[in-house]
């Protein structure tokens, strides 16, 4: 049987969440989970050519293990017509609620245009009232951390990756609302902030709140 190559009809973008128990799965595990879910959902996805065809999925940003998010993005190509609404409905039924799709649409902006991501970081323990000044000082001084790079572990100053921030002191916790660089050359992992803290919090949460373009103002969609 001779088959022509499947024709790509259009590109779609899926915006989804990553919460609860699903916070603890790695990027590789997320890819595998999405792949089986797309097949279960019967979505006509485009497969790569070659000896080892696999569904073509592109994710916008990495998310560290343990962090939750309301704004993850994945791009796909379809090889047959299916409406955005139907893709969303089918995928929602095939995914755990903690990985639910919240929007499906045709992308207008490329992932390469992403410049910043906004996070809410909550520190528990001795990070209550009075901690804002200390945190502010840390975030405005050089921040040397060990960073994984292609050339192994090396000391890096992540100060350049930090944008505007705001700190709210609560009873027994501090909430840091912060913009971090997220373009592919300067992606700043929020875990590095925790790593830079001299007094480690007893526990902490990281939530990705939004993704922005290079101007740091326009929301990425």
């Amino acid at each position, binding site marked *: 049987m001779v088959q022509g190559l499947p024709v790509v009809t259009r590109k779609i973008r899926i915006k989804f969440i990553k919460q609860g128990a699903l916070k603890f799965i790695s990027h590789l*595990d997320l890819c*595998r989970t999405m792949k089986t879910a797309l097949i279960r959902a019967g979505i006509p996805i485009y497969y790569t050519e070659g000896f080892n065809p696999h569904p073509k999925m592109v994710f916008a940003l990495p998310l560290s293990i343990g962090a939750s998010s309301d704004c993850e993005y994945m791009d796909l190509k379809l090889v047959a017509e299916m409406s955005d609404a139907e893709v969303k409905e089918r995928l929602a039924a095939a995914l755990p609620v903690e990985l639910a799709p919240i929007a499906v649409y045709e992308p207008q902006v490329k992932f390469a245009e992403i410049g910043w991501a906004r996070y809410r970081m909550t520190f528990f323990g001795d990070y209550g009232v009075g901690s804002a000044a200390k945190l502010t000082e840390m975030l405005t001084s050089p921040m040397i951390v060990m960073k994984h790079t292609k050339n192994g572990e090396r000391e890096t100053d992540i100060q350049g990756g930090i944008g505007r921030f705001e700190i709210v002191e609560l009873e027994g916790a501090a909430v840091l609302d912060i913009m971090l660089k997220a373009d592919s050359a300067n992606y700043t992992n929020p875990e590095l902030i925790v790593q830079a803290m001299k007094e480690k919090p007893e526990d902490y949460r990281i939530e990705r709140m939004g993704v922005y373009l290079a101007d740091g103002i326009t929301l990425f969609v």
Partner: protein
Amino acid sequence: MIEEKILKRVLKPGRYTGGEFGQIIKDKAKVKARFAFCFPDTYEIGMSNLGIRILYGALNAHEDIWCERAYAPWIDMEEEMRKGDIPLWAVESGDPLKEFDIVGFTLQYELCYTNVLNVLELAKIPLLASERTDSDPIIIGGGPCSYNPEPVADFFDLFSIGEGEEALCEITRLYIQMKEEGSYTRAAFLREAARMDGFYVPSLYEVRYNEDGTIASHEPKYEDVPRRVVKRIMKDMDESYFPENFVMPYIETVHDRIMLEVYRGCIRGCRFCQAGMVYRPIREKTPDRLNEQAKCLFRNTGYDEISLSSLSISDYTQIGCLTDKLLEWTDDSMVSLSLPSMRLDSFTHELMEKISGVRSSTLTFAPEAGTQRLRDAINKNVTEADLLQALDVAFDYGKNTVKLYFMLGLPTETDEDIEGIAQLAKRVIDYYYERPGKRKGKAPSVTISVACFIPKPDTAFQWEAQCTLEELDRKQQLLKEKITDRRIRYNYHDANVSRLEAVFARGDRKLSGALLEARRRGVRFDSWDEFFNYDIWMEIFDTVGIDPAFYANRTFGEDEVLPWDVIDCGVDKAFFKRERAQAYASIPTPNCKEKCSGCGANRLGGERSWCRDCPSSLAK
């Protein structure tokens, strides 16, 4: 769920969070019995076990029974649990195991016994069955090791012998019934369970020993307790419960694909192989039913690989028909087929064509012994000609990396047989260059992986002694010297591990003392190289006064009462004795397709079986 800060500190937190797609959640207020199914090793290994997937589904098919899963925590999580006084929990609900009605353990290999004890301790359930009260869960064991449950008999309330699809549901129903009637006490329940088919309650038997340490008698304490427990089988595999979906792990597991069980049992009678005996009689599913099950699992899981699993897949009478039916839809759906457990003598161009989607360039075969004489003695009915024919197929497809499995220390083995392993490996390389025509792919390479023979219960070699460590070492070194070609890679198993396995494989109840001492010393994960410590084990045996050679290196008497005589696996002892005599004469026994050898398993019945005397058999 366990605290987030702990999850952040441990490796692979996805092992502990649950919440997988396909997991079964029920309202605990509405169910009548809660069953925790524990695989006493890591999540990745446990989630790869098809048996648990089947039993999980079979139990949960009952509305009033909720079956959950549990695994052995990795050492980092164990440390957190001990530090934080957190009792072991079941994955679905997060509730402590000790709150469950029944906790089942699958015993897949002997070296998991220390993990069973560790899991019980972490769950805060008394280790010894005799110390449990009416408020503790019932601890039930099953799986391949339950064909000799004696080394762990003191830790289990009962064992489910044989296939559990119906048996586990029946025992849970009995539990529910006695609870509802108000007649439940641990003792009353166990007494009643012992009267049901396929349940062994070790506390209801009295074991007496001779002065030399062998067993004098193994008798039931009461008249209504059976002298021998006959294993249960599912008679019709087409009708037997098979899951329609799987719990989908988030983290990568060992077998992350659809496993389609094609048939149970084995027609081959390899004389060292326990699985080939205890799963008899052979019972096939029909291609239509299998195709249905495969389609259904594909739709519900989204896996893009189907592994046809059985002890020797090419022995399936309708393998051609099945693969044709599957290929009608799998190719278009981007699903690949894999056929593990291929026999040398069945590896054909036709089959290769169907699985050519297989990405690996490695082909694995198990000649098990280096000479025809020894292959005949162990009844591995393959010849060098079979190997060359299989190589023809492999090389034609450019699959030039060949892995061969062998065993050292087999009964009747001589140094000539060991040299034969090196020669056979060399033959593969030479054959590649001898073949006429164009060569495809890279230069050939051969890996030989050599295990140590372990005498196992319910085999023709169950009475045989394992070689001493010194002898195994000599044999391993001899083989090393005989391998001169650099294209042959030689791997061999740690003989110390094989020896411990032999001790527990043929052990009796006296070994429970050693296991308790091992727990006291913190031993666990024996099947993991990084934790296995032979010296500690020798100290343990010394402390409790057990001679490991008594179990591993002694030839058991054919008239001796064996620890596992209380379990009837369906195959008769008389058959094993005949097979042993044939081995010493290096005479092979025909497989069940060719001729019935009267092993006795056909008395258990079974549909679509090869057994000649079975009324519904194919060979009729």
